[in-house]
């Protein structure tokens, strides 16, 4: 290898490089006015879910739902909820005549990695919408990224108040319910079952979601007349909760509330039951355990321990409406078991996005935001709620009854399920039974509620 730089060589390569750089350069986004405008006959969606780590099970189920939604949008399979959706704009020919293609990524349940993965979907694969997330941290981080990059974010499973509270963004939308709604739906049932004279002890996962949930549940139960004996923060992923459960026995509390999720909840609940908490009598009452946020996958993990334990859910496959049945049927036929509520929210979000693009007649994120806010048709408000903020995009037939995408904060409002661990499940999949469908009026809140205050949607961002 020659190490000499001849004058001729330098001039030559300099000229070539200069010519290359002088070729017309252009900003890709300027052609269409928004980031990643689909040019060919396909449109690319990015599904960013945890495939490794603590929430990998939820992520895998979300991915199944996304794949099913794409099939249905492209006119394959039996169409699922396309037939039951109140908006009949989707006809199985993709979105706006473009075939739906998708890319997937692994968030590892870490905000950083989730952002890197979403960034590569946007910059490299040209994704026009990002969906997914199985935990609030990554969801909020990716939502902020999508806002900056100018693409739409359709949140998957994220239950923290902050996603549509203090961290809400104009380009981000959440269909899943939140901690406040759990706190509003669950306590009346608890009061009915366990009485209004109770002392509660909270064990709370020590991060944003855990705190917002503890705050919501505590406020709601105290309003019923319950006392709060103590609230204790536990590190995330602790594995062994025995040292946290022993003090519960001495505290004089007669209800234990576990603000845990995923593997933490499986461990803490199982250990609490093994310590014999549920066989105890305190203050002349049976000791009870409550898990405010339930999921099928967690219930399966906890096994016997969940029998008779109350919690709340966004959706359950055992509901009897046409949308739920259609979705459960096509999911079951494809994968051989019923979908979880994480899968449901991801499936619905994908269809809602496709529908919004169709109604808007454009992939431009700002047009999509308008459509999802109900400003280009489909606008409405929920019955029985007298509020100025009760307006947005109203739809039905997606398994939750009439649902409002509220324009003010991009949060969906719909009925919330209160469920209980089944005493005698007949199959591995009906381990939860629906106790009550809490009507949406009861879980309604104003956008400026103290638990949600401090955020600002800002303006929609279409990218460059």
């Amino acid at each position, binding site marked *: 290898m020659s190490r000499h730089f001849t004058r001729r060589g330098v001039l030559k390569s300099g000229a070539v490089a200069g010519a290359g750089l002088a070729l017309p350069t252009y900003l890709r986004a300027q052609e269409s006015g928004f980031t990643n405008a689909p040019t060919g006959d396909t449109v690319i969606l990015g599904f960013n879910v945890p495939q490794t780590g603590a929430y990998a099970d939820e992520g895998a189920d979300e991915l199944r739902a996304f794949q099913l939604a794409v099939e249905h949008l492209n006119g394959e399979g039996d169409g699922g909820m396309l037939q039951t959706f109140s908006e009949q704009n989707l006809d199985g020919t993709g979105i706006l005549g473009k075939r739906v293609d998708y890319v997937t990524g692994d968030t590892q349940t*870490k905000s950083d990695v989730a952002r890197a993965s979403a960034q590569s979907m946007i910059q490299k694969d040209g994704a026009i919408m990002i969906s997914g997330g199985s935990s609030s941290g990554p969801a909020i981080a990716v939502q902020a990224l999508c806002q900056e990059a100018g693409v739409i974010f359709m949140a998957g499973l994220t239950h923290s108040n902050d996603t549509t509270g203090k961290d809400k963004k104009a380009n981000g939308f959440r269909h899943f319910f939140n901690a406040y709604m759990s706190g509003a739906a669950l306590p009346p049932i608890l009061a009915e079952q366990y009485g209004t004279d109770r002392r509660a002890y909270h064990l709370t996962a020590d991060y944003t979601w855990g705190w917002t949930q503890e705050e919501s549940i505590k406020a709601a139960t105290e309003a019923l007349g319950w006392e709060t004996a103590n609230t204790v923060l536990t590190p995330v992923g602790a594995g062994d909760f025995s040292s946290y459960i022993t003090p519960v026995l001495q505290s004089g509390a007669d209800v234990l509330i576990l603000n845990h999720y995923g593997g933490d909840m499986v461990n803490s609940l199982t250990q609490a039951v093994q310590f014999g908490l549920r066989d105890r009598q305190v203050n002349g009452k049976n000791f009870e355990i409550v898990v405010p946020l339930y999921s099928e996958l967690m219930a399966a993990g906890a096994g016997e321990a969940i029998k008779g334990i109350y919690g709340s859910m966004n959706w359950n496959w055992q509901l009897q409406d046409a949308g739920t049945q259609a979705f459960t049927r096509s999911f079951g036929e494809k994968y051989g078991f019923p979908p979880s509520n994480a899968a449901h929210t991801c499936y619905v979000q994908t269809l809602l996005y496709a529908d919004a693009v169709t109604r808007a007649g454009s992939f431009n994120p700002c047009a999509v935001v308008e459509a999802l806010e109900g400003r280009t048709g489909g606008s409405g408000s929920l019955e029985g709620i007298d509020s100025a903020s009760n307006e947005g995009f109203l739809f039905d037939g997606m398994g939750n009854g009439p649902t409002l995408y509220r324009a003010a904060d991009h949060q969906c409002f719909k009925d919330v399920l209160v469920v209980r661990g089944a005493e005698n499940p007949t199959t591995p999949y009906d381990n939860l039974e629906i106790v009550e469908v809490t009507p949406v009026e009861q879980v309604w809140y104003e956008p400026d509620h103290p638990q949600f205050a401090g955020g600002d949607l800002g303006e929609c961002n279409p990218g460059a």
Partner: protein
Amino acid sequence: MLGLGKKDFTLFLAVAAITLLAPFILNPFPTGSGLAQFNAGYPDLMQRFVIYGIFAIGFNILFGLTGYLSFGHAAFLGLGSYSAVWMFKLLSMNVIPALILSVIVAGLFALVIGYISLRRSGIYFSILTLAFAQMAYALAYSVLTPLTNGETGLQLTLDDPRVLDGGGRPTSLPVTELFGMEMRDTASLGLGAWDFTFGVGFYFCAVVMLISFYLAIRIFRSPFGMMLRAVKSNQQRMNYTGLNTRPYTLAAFVISGMYAGLAGGLLACMDPLAGAERMQWTASGEVVLMTILGGAGTLIGPILGAGMIKYFENIFSKINDAVLHQWFAALPDGLEDFLVTIIHPFIGKGWHLTLGLMFMAVVIFLPGGLVEGGQRVGRLFRRRDRKAGGAEAQAAEQRRTPAE
């Protein structure tokens, strides 16, 4: 030139050329072709290559030269990110103050942690640094939430003061910039079927990396670097000769902490969010892997290793079954499904497995890392030096003789 020896200067030029031409080199496949999956030439990933390159260069100054294996370097990366984001929130969206504060904060923490940890060596040193990093992680994740915003990560908001940028509440989040040049600005160049993207952010990171690389070369070749190498080969002997090695190791620790802080600050400059995961022990382990994979103690090894690991994390994790089916669509159905089933565990969520196998292969067959691999390949093709050839010929001659 530039105070470098001829060989080092050539190496520096080569690294500079590769870095600056990365948008071309990393996009070898035409956009839209099946192989475009393997292209890595998009700004976000290229930025990560060079930023983690800086992180690994800094780590190598400590580990490669002194042999002290720090298992908590990610703490400095995270500190750098948090400082930078706080600068963006309080002062200005310009990246310069942010980077300065990141380096200073990381340096100060490195001084404290190093002062304590360096009282021990070997595995005890590693454990001490690991403990400090996990402590930092736990603090950032929950205890210090007002400062770090916990699990969600520290982000910009519309209401941040940003004193230097002049009042007025923006309607959308401001972007990081360098005297008016927005970091996320890109320009594309279409050449036939190819599409190349040039990002301002990437070139800024690339320049910072080249400066860091240059400094690293100077450190490697300086008397100070020689002293560090002496520490690695036999610290006891150094102590017996009456030399106090601790100031040297502490200096190396602080320098490498500052490199990590710079990398963390740059990460935040490219994407103004700082998450606690950046400090987790897995992140500390990652930089150890990068350095060993590339070749510990070599100049360019850590950069190669960083690129390798980030490539796997971002490219392999995104290959899914649908992509595989596309690739093998031409084959008969049975064979297609069979191949997909075989490859399935190694892609998508299985990228860790692929990386692990590769790491094993490198450690077993190329103990010197990728650099050693490169040297071996180079030796195969290089025209033999006349003298060496002569020696080899003689050796071969000697070997042949007794057999007769």
